[in-house]
């Protein structure tokens, strides 16, 4: 009886913890649907009327900068860099897991070590290079940088997924005369598709979130969504509903990608160390 009672208590405690951690997000969502005057009351107005004004404001319906260029830039930078990452990491993972090069573990750890080099340390030379090459405020520069940021994660994740592909299947294809590109595209890729998808989602999240490089290297043209959000750092009178709407809209792709990749999220975040 006491064991059962304790079990229920711990279950309730787990629920309570989950709710406490989720509360700020729930409150953000609720506030985004309030009018500005209802959003800024103390004590908070939980039951105020709902409205889409915050979203209208954010999307620039009432004048003000439209977030669409920034959202489109973010989409371009994240999708393009994710595709480039897959294109580079998939063959590399093949050479590190199926037909292994000599010293393949050293190569893997070289990739990992680049991830541990703080991005901020390379920021200045990248900025000077971009300035001289006329690449400042160019979304393709971010695509290249985000690719280098995510490539180590992708190589590690992919090699652990590809290692699970049965060798016999690949040998059979080889005996039938298939060449490497065909084997990769027709045999390995379909088998490891769930892993590739999870890798892509995690790379997408990291690119979408990035602020420092985007802030330094872009201006009015190539500004990304996180940079657009920095416009809300200083208070602008009553703007709480607008901030909440903005934060939620910009986070939606990440929430969607994260929940879709939930099962493989740990593996990606721990660079493949934890399954």
């Amino acid at each position: 009886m006491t064991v059962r009672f304790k079990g229920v208590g711990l279950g309730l405690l787990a629920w309570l913890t989950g709710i406490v951690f989720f509360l700020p997000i729930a409150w953000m969502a609720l506030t985004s649907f309030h009018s500005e005057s209802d959003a800024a009351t103390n004590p908070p107005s939980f039951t105020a009327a709902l409205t889409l004004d915050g979203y209208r404001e954010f999307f620039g319906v009432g004048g003000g900068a439209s977030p669409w260029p920034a959202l489109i830039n973010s989409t371009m930078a994240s999708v393009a860099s994710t595709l480039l990452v897959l294109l580079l990491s998939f063959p590399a993972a093949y050479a590190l897991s199926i037909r292994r090069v000599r010293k393949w573990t050293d190569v893997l750890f070289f990739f990992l070590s680049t991830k541990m080099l703080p991005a901020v340390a390379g920021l200045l030379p990248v900025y000077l290079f971009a300035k001289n090459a006329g690449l400042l405020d160019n979304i393709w520069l971010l695509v290249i940088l985000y690719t280098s940021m995510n490539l180590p994660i992708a190589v590690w994740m992919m090699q652990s997924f590809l290692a699970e592909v049965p060798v016999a299947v690949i040998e059979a294809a080889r005996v039938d005369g298939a060449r490497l590109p065909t084997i990769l595209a027709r045999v390995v890729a379909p088998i490891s598709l769930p892993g590739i998808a999870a890798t892509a989602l995690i790379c997408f999240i990291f690119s979408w979130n990035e602020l420092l490089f985007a802030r330094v290297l872009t201006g009015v043209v190539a500004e990304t969504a996180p940079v657009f959000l920095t416009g809300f750092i200083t208070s602008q009178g009553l703007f709480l509903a607008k901030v909440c709407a903005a934060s939620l809209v910009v986070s939606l792709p990440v929430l969607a990608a994260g929940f879709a990749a939930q099962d493989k999220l740990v593996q990606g975040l721990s660079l493949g160390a934890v399954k």
Partner: protein
Amino acid sequence: MTATASPRVAAATARPAPRPPSDRLRAWATRAPLLPALVFMIVVTQLPFVATVVISFFDWNALYPKDRHFTGVDNYRQVLTDPDLRHSVWTTVLLTVTVVLVSLVLGLVVALLLNRRFRGRGVVRTLMIAPFLIVPVAAALLWKHVLYNPEYGLLNGLLHYVGGPQPDWISDNPLLAVEAALVWQWTPFMMLILLAGLQSRDQQQLEAARVDGASDWQIFRYLTFPHLRRYLELGGLLGSIYIVQNFDAVFTITSGGLGTANLPYTVYQSFYQAHENGLASAAGVVVVIGSIIIATFALRVVSSLFREEVSPA
């Protein structure tokens, strides 16, 4: 880090003795799929860092480009003696250690709670992960404006109900305000890693211990905790690597003011606003040295987990 890793890669491609051409051709065919990724990484990540090291030995203000000259280790002397910069080193350490430790402990508690069977476990897990899936800038804005605001923030709103005080959270404890927001985002990360650790425990061993009459505490102390140790290390070290580099929260919540400027923010500020290229580079190199110390341990932990997985195969 880069200096030690690169020769190892070079050694991997170097050949001990000349071989017949067909063998060499085959070796290159094996290497070919790897090369694009490897070359890309070396060019995009290693070259800029080498440039940073070179620039760090120059007195170079971007506003006076003609005055650029070699100064040896002067920039480093300045980074390590300037009170503001020294303070930012200390802030970085404090911020990283606090956030990592607190989110590790909280993450462990939540992971233990979620490792048990109860009604709605999947839902609670999803609720817990959500904070990690808010864009960092958005999360920082949420804490700054929606929770901390002294006039209409949720925290003071809730305090209002119980007749509590109405503190100005960010001005009163600026560093703590940044830390709390980061702990909220990083606890789910730790929880996920530790939960994976808990679920990889040897079930038969646990069962045997239970049959032998071990208490819950004994099982945790002598079986679970030793097993979790490496997952705790992994979470702590990966967390440190990300949080040492944190820029978004400091930039958004306090804009580096009120003594919360950490090294990444200082590097950003000294070249973006003060245009001190040499100084910024030296500060960047200091961040790297700090990261290398953490990374050396991190690589060891990852490689021990990795080898354990590879060896039975």
